[in-house]
């Protein structure tokens, strides 16, 4: 039996939290608020006891797979362990309960932390400067593309094209379009990398930038990146790197040395801040020296031994966040980087790469990997051989849930048929990886011997496969009291 909605637990008159009594002289609200500004009907929020809330949301939590409870090999999402100490640090009142308008003299600690985090990210990536404002990777991309637009505008010329490989994440073209650019797609070469010939044929004086992910979504390093960057720079076009896959590169290679002009990092991936079921994240943007003036304001600056916000800059693209960014996330990432330090960060990437190659070596006979070069932190395999039995990548994903594993990213990147994009991360043990390998091999067997079992999966979840078509055709996006209609007084 499915869990009821919190609204279905509601009993009129029940309370879950009491406010302290008023200690100021009480006056009827009508004396303070004009009648036509007052709310006529209260929101229909549930009326439940504190314990109702605790039981309800504890039970709901138990319906989730999560990193804490299950192996979560979701490709390009870097679902590594999120250290608990970082939660404790972020909850310290000195971080959790400071106001963004407090004078700098009262918040030197957080300013020092943010400044220190910027320095660390510069060292890790080889970029000259960072903004910590963007609230997620996609907002980082948007910030980067606004910088690209501002750069060309400053040079008084129109550049309207962004080149994007066909293996790119969907946020790349969406961010480009939101910045007024048109997108020209680059077809990947037979090795899964940017095809130099294709690239050169599309490179012209209208190109504002290339957006590329490195390692790309196949887990492959763009071997020609320096050449590509040089060709773009010849046209005074920029190289934007989507740094979502930075977990492959810590202490291996630095984007700043590759000719990258700007990139975003996803701190909720590489730097272990929890994904929270869909955020909050943080997507700092790093730039080369020539682009530093375009970064969003305000920027934290060190003056002598003191830290302060610099609110103005001549060429800035402006502000992308209401305040200074997702500070709580930045604090966690700082604690993580300091805990791992130079040796730990390097070891994290090395281990992530070994784990991915180990899975690939054990699985590729059954689930072919279309590109042969060594992968870095992730790889894309194909469930195509199972199609002969009527089993798809999506079916494999669902069946994995029955085995107690979250699913890889499926059907992405679009250039691999029946794609299974697998990223184990460094925090999973060999034992877990072996169990995962065994499950995937068993599913391939099941596809031959009992394909119906795989096609009907999952069977051990709280619900079976859901009717997605119904969900989209008859959108039911909010609960309604039975027999109540939505008509509000308007």
């Amino acid at each position, binding site marked *: 039996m499915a869990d009821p909605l919190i*609204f279905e637990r509601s009993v009129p008159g029940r309370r879950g939290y009491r406010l302290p009594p008023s200690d100021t002289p009480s006056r009827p609200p009508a004396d303070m608020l004009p009648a036509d500004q007052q709310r006529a009907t209260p929101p229909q929020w549930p009326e439940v006891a504190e314990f109702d809330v605790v039981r309800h949301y504890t039970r709901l939590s138990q319906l989730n797979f999560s990193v804490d409870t299950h192996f979560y090999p979701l490709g390009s999402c870097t679902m590594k362990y999120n250290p608990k100490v970082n939660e404790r640090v972020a909850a310290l009142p000195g971080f959790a309960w400071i106001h963004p308008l407090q004078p700098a003299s009262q918040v030197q*600690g*957080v300013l020092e932390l943010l400044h220190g985090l910027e320095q660390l990210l510069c060292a890790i990536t080889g970029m000259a400067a960072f903004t910590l404002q963007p609230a997620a990777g996609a907002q980082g991309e948007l910030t980067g593309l606004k910088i690209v637009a501002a750069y060309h505008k400053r040079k008084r010329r129109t550049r309207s094209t962004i080149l994007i490989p066909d293996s790119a994440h969907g946020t790349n073209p*969406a961010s480009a379009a939101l910045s007024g650019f048109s997108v020209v797609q680059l077809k990947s070469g037979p090795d899964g990398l940017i095809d130099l010939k294709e690239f050169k044929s599309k490179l012209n004086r209208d190109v504002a930038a290339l957006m590329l992910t490195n390692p790309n979504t196949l887990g492959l390093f763009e071997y020609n990146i320096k050449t590509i960057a040089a060709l773009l720079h010849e046209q005074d076009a920029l190289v934007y790197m989507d740094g979502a896959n930075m977990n492959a590169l810590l202490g291996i290679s630095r984007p700043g040395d590759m000719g990258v002009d700007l990139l975003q990092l996803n701190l909720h991936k590489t730097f272990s801040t929890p994904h929270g079921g869909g955020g909050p994240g943080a997507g700092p943007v790093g730039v080369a020296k020539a682009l530093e003036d375009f970064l969003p304001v305000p920027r934290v600056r060190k003056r002598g031994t003191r830290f302060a916000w610099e609110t103005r800059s001549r060429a800035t*693209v402006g502000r992308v966040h209401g305040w200074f960014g997702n500070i709580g996330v930045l604090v966690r990432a700082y604690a993580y980087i300091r805990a791992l330090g130079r040796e730990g960060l390097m070891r994290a990437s090395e281990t992530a790469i070994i784990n991915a190659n180990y899975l690939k070596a054990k699985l590729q006979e059954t689930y072919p990997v279309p590109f042969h070069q060594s992968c870095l932190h992730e790889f894309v395999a194909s469930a195509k051989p199972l199609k002969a039995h009527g089993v798809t990548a999506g079916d494999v994903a669902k069946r994995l849930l029955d085995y107690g594993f979250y699913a890889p990213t499926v059907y992405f990147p679009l250039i691999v048929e029946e794609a299974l994009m697998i990223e184990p991360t460094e925090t999973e043990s060999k034992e877990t990886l072996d169990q995962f390998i065994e499950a995937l091999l068993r599913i391939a067997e099941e596809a031959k011997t009992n394909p119906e079992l795989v096609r009907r999966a999952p069977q051990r979840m709280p619900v079976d496969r859901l009717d997605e078509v119904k969900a989209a055709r008859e959108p039911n996006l909010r609960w309604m009291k039975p027999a109540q209609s939505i008509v509000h007084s308007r």
Partner: protein
Amino acid sequence: MDYAPNTDDQRQEMLRAIGVSSFEELINAVPVELHQRSLHAPHGLAEAQVLELCGALAARNQSLTDLTSFLGAGQYHHLIPTVVDAIASRGEWLTPYTPYQAEAGQGTLQAIYEFQTMVCELMQMEVANASLYDGASSTAEAVILSLRATEQPRVLLSEALHPHAREVIATYLIGANAIVQEIPAVNGVTDLEALGKALRDDVACVVMQQPNVFGCLEPMAQAGELAHKVGALFVSSVYPISLGLLQPPGAYGADIAVAEGRCLGTPISYGGPGLGLFTTTSALLRKIPGRLAGCTVDHAGRRGFTLTLQTREQHIRREKATSNICTNEGLIALRATVFMSLLGPEGLKEMATLNLEKAHYAHERLRDVSWLRPAFEQSFFNEFTLQCDDAVDIEVVNRTLAKADIIGGFPLKSWYPSMPHASLWCATEVLSQDAIDRAVDALKKAV
């Protein structure tokens, strides 16, 4: 500390299974000239050292919990029931990704569906999404939706809309061929006459804030009516706690209502993470940015939840998506859901009433200070603007107050250079009458 469990022996065993003799072979695909096998970062730390280091940094910040603060200006200090942290710190909420595999994410999906319902109820709007980054980016997304839905280029922003929201809108509109026009405020509220004059057929939307940045209540119903007359959309940015007493946007005809929802159960954290609330009408449903959870059935006919209408989104539509947003503020939305469940309709009204009473008490007491007076004669909720005598510098006064652990009103001159003597004062349920009285005494002595 690297949190990676495999031992050196296991790593060697795995390298052998891969068929390479050393790790370096695995990175052959990275050109040697690009190898940078060292990091200019400090050595790692043990957990106790991390706590010591970060604890020392935190200790160099003065926490609101140790101060009497009148700061608001878009970020308000509210109580958070203990249960919110107890629930939100569970790994099952904290550590999953966006629920792409619905069968293994029913908890998150049902919670989003409950969140969407509660946010619709709060705003009295028909549709709410699963959240955006913060109030400012929600306002920018509302403007972008309006430009697309109306296919008109002009955007009218009230001067009394939070300046940071206006700045974020400007950044989001780089490259968008839109024209932004600001409507002045007179006596603390948006000038309806100026608004009327600016409203022409080419206007996509009017954006106003309630209560506005000066704390004043705006004539939202009249402004909305003016906007609708020329076919423009009316966008309202609101303060969730105030809606315990104030008219919700749906009641005055807002087409899009947005808010900074962080105040519903999450600490201020120096301004982030926030929680962008985004609501609209059914008519605009298919243009809405961000994730939506929907209720459906499984093959056995049982109720279940899934992400839906994804053809609006970047991973399907790529450059034709309604927005580029992917990761949003899931955990903060969960915190808000737990908070709203605990408060219920009565709790919200009680919290709003406490704010109204404390702020009106503070307003009355601060009028006693000889060199302070109300800047505007307007109704307000929990925040108001005061004017100093020309001879008094509020920043100097604030430095004096700081010595007594009091943070005075926020000087508005950095946001509004034409208001050099104005400051913004806020009182929420966390301020006691005692604290307000002590602050008033300190102010009287400060000049």
